[in-house]
């Protein structure tokens, strides 16, 4: 059953090479948060209520890496970025467009999603500005190497 995610909670975004960058290297931010059409403009994050320690976040990242590799995908989990729900919900484009953060427990209780709040028609510039701003809210990085 989906729950309301409080503003004061934290969320973490998994990092996968090669698309998002490389361990210890610079991140390719436009790939960290892309909001693809194919995923209905949603990006997955870990709700820290159900993964309180960073080791818990990494455990989910390792599991996703294993699952993706089993499906033939080239990906290596190399860490996570953490930010606060409040900071993400507080981002505004010039015209007032913003994100929502929702609990989507279909992949486990820890699973949440960031997406555009559909309270208006978003322009290309709204989306570009929101994407440009979200990276500033995920500056706490924890690197990881899967065992």
């Amino acid at each position, binding site marked *: 059953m989906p729950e309301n995610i409080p503003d004061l909670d934290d969320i973490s975004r998994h990092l996968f090479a090669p698309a998002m960058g490389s361990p210890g290297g610079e991140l390719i931010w*436009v790939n960290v948060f892309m909001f693809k059409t194919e995923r209905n403009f949603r990006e997955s994050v870990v709700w820290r209520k159900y993964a309180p320690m960073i080791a818990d976040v990494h455990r989910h990242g390792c599991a996703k890496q294993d699952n993706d590799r089993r499906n033939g995908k080239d990906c290596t989990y190399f860490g996570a970025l953490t930010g606060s729900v409040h900071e993400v919900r507080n981002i505004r484009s010039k015209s007032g467009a913003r994100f929502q953060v929702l609990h989507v427990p279909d992949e486990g209780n820890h699973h949440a999603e960031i997406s555009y709040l559909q309270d208006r028609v978003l322009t290309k510039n709204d989306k570009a500005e929101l994407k440009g701003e979200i990276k500033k809210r995920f500056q706490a990085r924890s690197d990881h190497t899967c065992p």
Partner: protein
Amino acid sequence: MSLQSRMYDDPSLSSDADIAFGLPPQNDISSDILDYEERKLQLQSIIEQMIHAAPSYDSDPVAVREGAAATAQRFLQVLPINRELPKVAPDGEGDLLFVWEPPHGNCIATVQEDMLHLVDQPGTAHAAHIDAQQFTGGHIPVQILHAIPMR
């Protein structure tokens, strides 16, 4: 006009006045132009590859539409040499992003087929949206060109 003819036909690149006003000597300017044009070609090549398979976080390739790619390549062709070159990325919706990040400017352009959008100074109190400017080649719309950082 070819790169070579641009280098040799432009009298401003070989005049004594350049040196008198403290500009680099001709060889340095020529080298700078070559580097700039080489980086433009690299960007255009990257855009060409994105039509087939642009990178994406989940390893599922993101498609970039041919029309958007062609428009982005035309944009680079006519981008004046006194402007910074952008980083390029798919926007996840079939179009392309050109990104100028500090210290080399602060704006993001989205390129659709024959259409440009630009947000200048995103996330600041001075943010400005320039929406849906037609661009079929030739000249970059003035409003957009003015927002692109000088180098």
